[in-house]
């Protein structure tokens, strides 16, 4: 493994998940994150393939909302994305139909051929956050006289389909960046050699962490959050010494802020927009009284933003915008991610489907889990439950004004925040950077080193 100052970071705009994984690595990039499949980076015939894939992705994300046939379509989607049970442990390295189909797309249709040529223009290592680009670049012969480049593939979920690994992983040059232990296990089951797996963790935004050794921002935000999430002091009665020890604080202040802040994150495809009306109905009075603040994160699609704004106005809460209610949206992806990360620092509970945002529990955010879409999200949900950082809504959306406050009162949300901080890896961005820059890697043992 060689040391490098810069790297290529390659992602796709398919929802926001893959881009969200790439964004914290932007300091490492050679010329900014390469969003493959966008007009800027992709020649016309191939751009059209990606545009079609994107449409299919967005349509399938919203399939559940289609009357009558929605359930059947979601069932079909789950079948396509099916991830084999991990237990009993077996060899799962045999390529699936999806793996062979992808290989055919690469070989016969030249998928990502222009990406290969672009990456060959500078001999930096490459970090991919989407399997198709990684496998294509790994599969296609590099242009003549190009030195071999290190290729890394960052896995963006807590468990994943066989299609993320090439047909013969043992002969591949791909190395894998794993966000959690289950991913390592699954990679081994798919036949990836152990030497090619690095347990880095998911790259979380550095602006929400602080320095690698100090975690100043994360610690300060988390301490304030725990206080807001534990108005009755139940959580601190169990965990006070642990919290003060890990976060380096003393003592627990007697006064607490009265309010807490919930962020509801609508997925990149806008599939959860219809939930907003019910959540607003449930929280309306509490919002007005200032007991809770709500951040609605709408992504980059204007139609989603306008729909959410319409719902807010329809609920008679227009005057709360800028007070108890904040809407996060920007049509520019990077500007949106920056606004989202800034809003996360003010957030006490992250309400989202268990997408890649599940890993954000490492920032000490309790994840309130909306219904998952797809097999990988089902398994992200399971992972969140295993580490106790995820909470399932115990009642209907319309009653969230009741159960959210009960969860807070009981200290369960504070507990989930604390468990996420202790058990999930948070230093992924730093570890990936060091791995690429120096070739060095250490997994870390303590929660402050992972």
């Amino acid at each position, binding site marked *: 493994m060689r040391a490098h100052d810069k790297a290529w970071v390659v992602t796709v705009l398919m929802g926001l998940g893959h881009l969200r994984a790439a964004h914290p690595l932007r300091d490492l990039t050679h010329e*900014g994150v390469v969003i493959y499949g966008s*007009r*800027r980076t992709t020649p016309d015939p191939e751009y059209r393939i990606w545009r079609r894939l994107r449409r299919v992705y967005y349509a399938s994300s919203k399939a559940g909302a289609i009357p009558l046939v929605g359930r059947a379509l979601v069932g079909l989607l789950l079948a396509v994305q099916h991830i084999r049970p991990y237990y009993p442990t077996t060899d799962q390295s045999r390529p699936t139909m999806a793996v062979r189909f992808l290989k055919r797309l690469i070989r016969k249709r030249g998928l990502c051929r222009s990406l290969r040529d672009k990456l060959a223009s500078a001999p930096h290592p490459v970090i991919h956050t989407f399997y198709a680009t990684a496998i294509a670049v790994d599969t296609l012969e590099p242009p003549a006289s190009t030195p071999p480049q290190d290729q890394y593939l960052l896995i963006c979920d807590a468990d994943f389909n066989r299609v993320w690994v090439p047909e013969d992983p043992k002969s591949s040059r791909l190395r894998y960046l794993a966000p959690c232990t289950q991913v390592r296990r699954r990679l081994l089951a798919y036949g990836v050699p152990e030497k090619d797996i690095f347990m880095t963790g998911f790259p979380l935004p550095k602006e929400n962490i602080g320095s690698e050794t100090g975690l100043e921002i994360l610690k300060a935000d988390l301490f304030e959050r725990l206080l807001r999430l534990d108005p009755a002091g139940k959580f601190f009665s169990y965990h006070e010494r642990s919290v003060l020890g890990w976060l380096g604080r003393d003592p627990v202040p007697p006064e607490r802020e009265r309010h807490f802040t919930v962020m509801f994150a609508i997925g990149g495809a806008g599939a959860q927009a219809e939930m907003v009306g019910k959540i607003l109905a449930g929280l309306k009075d509490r919002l007005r009284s200032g007991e809770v603040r709500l951040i609605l994160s709408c992504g*980059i699609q204007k139609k989603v933003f306008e729909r959410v704004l*319409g*719902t807010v106005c329809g609920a008679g809460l227009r005057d709360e*915008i800028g007070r108890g209610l904040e809407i996060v949206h920007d049509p*520019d*992806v990077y500007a949106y991610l920056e606004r989202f990360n800034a809003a996360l620092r003010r957030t006490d509970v992250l309400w989202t489907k268990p997408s890649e945002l599940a890993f954000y529990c490492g920032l000490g955010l309790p994840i309130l889990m909306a219904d998952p879409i797809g097999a990988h999200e089902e398994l992200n949900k399971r992972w969140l439950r295993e580490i106790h950082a995820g909470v399932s809504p115990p009642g209907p959306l319309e009653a969230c004004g009741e159960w959210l406050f009960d969860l807070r009162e009981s200290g369960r949300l504070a507990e989930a925040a604390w468990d996420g901080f202790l058990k999930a890896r948070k230093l992924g961005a730093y570890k990936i950077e060091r791995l690429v820059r120096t070739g060095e890697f250490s997994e870390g043992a303590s929660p402050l080193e992972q």
Partner: protein
Amino acid sequence: MKTTILVLLAVSGAVMFLFSAFTVAFRRGRKTAPADVRRYPFVSLLKPVKNIDDDLAANLESFYRLDYPAYEVLFGVDDLQDPCVPILRALQARHPRIRTRIVASGRPPFENPKVHKLARLESKARGALLWATDANVRVAPDTLRRLVDEYLAHDAKVVFSPIRGSFSRSFGSLMENMSLSFFTSGGVIASWFLGRQPIIVGKSMLVERAALETFGGFGYFKDYLAEDFLIGEAFRKSGFRVSTNCTWVTNVSQTATLKSFFKRLSRWAKLRYRLRLPVYLAEVLLNPIVIALAGWAVLGRRGAAVLAFTAAAKTALEYANFLSVNPEDARRLRNHLLFPAAVLVKDLVFFAVYLTPFFSREVEWRGGRIAIGKNTLIHVPANVDNLVYEGA
């Protein structure tokens, strides 16, 4: 086939009749109860200006004679070398009691230049209400008061206006003004009163600043060329009330040529095509003279009579609009004499223009060419960073 042609003509005639009836009926606007003078909020008038439009000084002067208690005027120019700047400075000097600012905004290459100016002016504005108007617009003294009355009476976040094209001095400008007063304003008023569908034409729109800021200001629309229509759509979809009391504003066009008329129509046609394709396809029905011409072959000898009748009926409907909506032009005998020819030529030009969006997506605007995509998203060259979702 004959029946089809006659049915199409009947439908087209009915729509034309509605356009004419609505514009005539609302030629003086709709009464809104005037507000208590103490309730009138401070208004910032935002005027993007470039070069010297027909009778620019008189157009701008009309905004200094408004019967309204408190307002300011903010001009946005690309740079202070623009030939319009001396006119703006003269106005500023002539009206020291009305706060006037001239803001040079520069011109970013891949943004809607008008929206870019509006966003800059918005940042300098003091008003709770923003009234954006074009430089070639002239208004009556009571215009702003009437718009604000509508805002106060109905809690409307955007108040829009129909447009009267006027001050024709050339054959081209007569056609342009007729098309604005009849086709554009007829569409604006009819779609509002029949379907509550706001078609906002950026010649004049009064916007509540707080509501606009919910979207992040005018900048939210910077990537689209048809910002005016999209503002109406965004506000309506987001649950903000959009309204009109049909307070007309006057678009001054004196020296337009056939070429400039064609270019303007072509630009607007391309925008409509990219905004609502099915509606655009149906627009051919709004051209009865072309339908009658096409039907001539089918209808045989009767075709000529049908065409003559259609042309006469269409001219009569437009003439009714002309007499009631555009008294300024109706004072000139030359306009009356040219009127029938102007109707016929205009409708043939309309048809030629109708076809242009099928072959081109580039529009000419203020000396530059801009390619547009879905929803009039401004096309950014592939070598420029652009991560706006619809363009990605």
